[in-house]
């Protein structure tokens, strides 16, 4: 019976990932990550997503803080966005990466208002992504747990 449950969960997982691709939330880099997961590293994607989310939240906190100052330190801002853009790119978070590019451009222009707008986009994109990632990880963990019970 759990075979059917596992199969159903895998379909659910696949569909979720496909939706995220279709919406441009994820790109091919995410496939690369999935390909690196195997029986010797069954939690690889989960681990990377967790690292990514912790890091993204740290950066978003810093960005929030820096944008709250009257005099924005644009080079600090740029440095943080560069980090977030990098990790977004590494995990395949396509739309979030693009949002980072927008903030970098606004930051290059030393335009605080534009930066704030661009930052809101980043925060929105990240929240959507995190929600979907959380569902994805829940499904994945159930699959792993069922598969482990079978052994």
């Amino acid at each position, binding site marked *: 019976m759990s075979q059917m449950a596992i199969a159903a969960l895998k379909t659910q997982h696949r569909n979720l990932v496909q939706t995220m691709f279709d919406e441009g939330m994820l790109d091919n*880099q995410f496939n*690369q*990550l999935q*390909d*690196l997961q195997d029986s*010797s*590293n069954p939690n*690889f994607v989960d*681990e*990377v997503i967790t*690292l*990514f989310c912790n*890091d993204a939240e740290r950066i978003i906190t810093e960005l929030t803080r820096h944008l709250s100052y009257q005099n924005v330190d644009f080079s600090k801002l740029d440095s943080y966005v*560069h*980090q977030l*853009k*990098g*990790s977004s*790119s*590494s*995990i*395949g978070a396509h739309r979030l990466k693009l949002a980072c590019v927008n903030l970098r451009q606004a930051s290059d222009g030393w335009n605080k208002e534009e930066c704030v707008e661009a930052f809101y986009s980043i925060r929105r994109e990240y929240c959507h992504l995190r929600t979907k990632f959380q569902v994805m990880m829940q499904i994945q963990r159930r699959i792993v747990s069922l598969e482990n019970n079978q052994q």
Partner: protein
Amino acid sequence: MEMAVDKTQFHVLAVDDSLIDRKLIERLLKTSSFQVTAVDSGIKALEFLGLNDDDDDEDEQRDSNSESISSDEDQDHQDLGVNLIITDYCMPGMTGYDLLKKIKKSSCFKDIPVVIMSSENIPSRINRCLEDGAEEFFLKPVRLSDVNKLRPHLMKGRSKDIDFPDRTRSGCLISTGN
């Protein structure tokens, strides 16, 4: 436990300040049967190699001192077994380019192939790195197909190695097939 193919295992030193990228490069390298040490800065990389930051000009001097553990200088550094260094370009403090220059200036380590990674596609940056001794320049995100390009550089370096019979090799393990 990683299954190695029927050849010597190469040891790669990976340098990247991003935790995610370190995890990624480590997985990519291990998937390709490399042994990996990952550090988060150029300084740590130099420390790992046993090369102090301000010592590179004094390498000649240090080598002639009796400070080193073994009398054979090349033997000593080869025992660390780093066969290739792969480093991010943009890092706080010491950049990957700075690290490249230090490695190439070092009498002990200048022959270790160095590969640079960067998320930014800047031709002048790429050219400068390649001109100053980097074997390859990978654009991030790095993929398995990039990592597969590393082996030829390592094989080339291997033929220059001094034989060190007392070093353990992974030897003839069964390949799971790649």
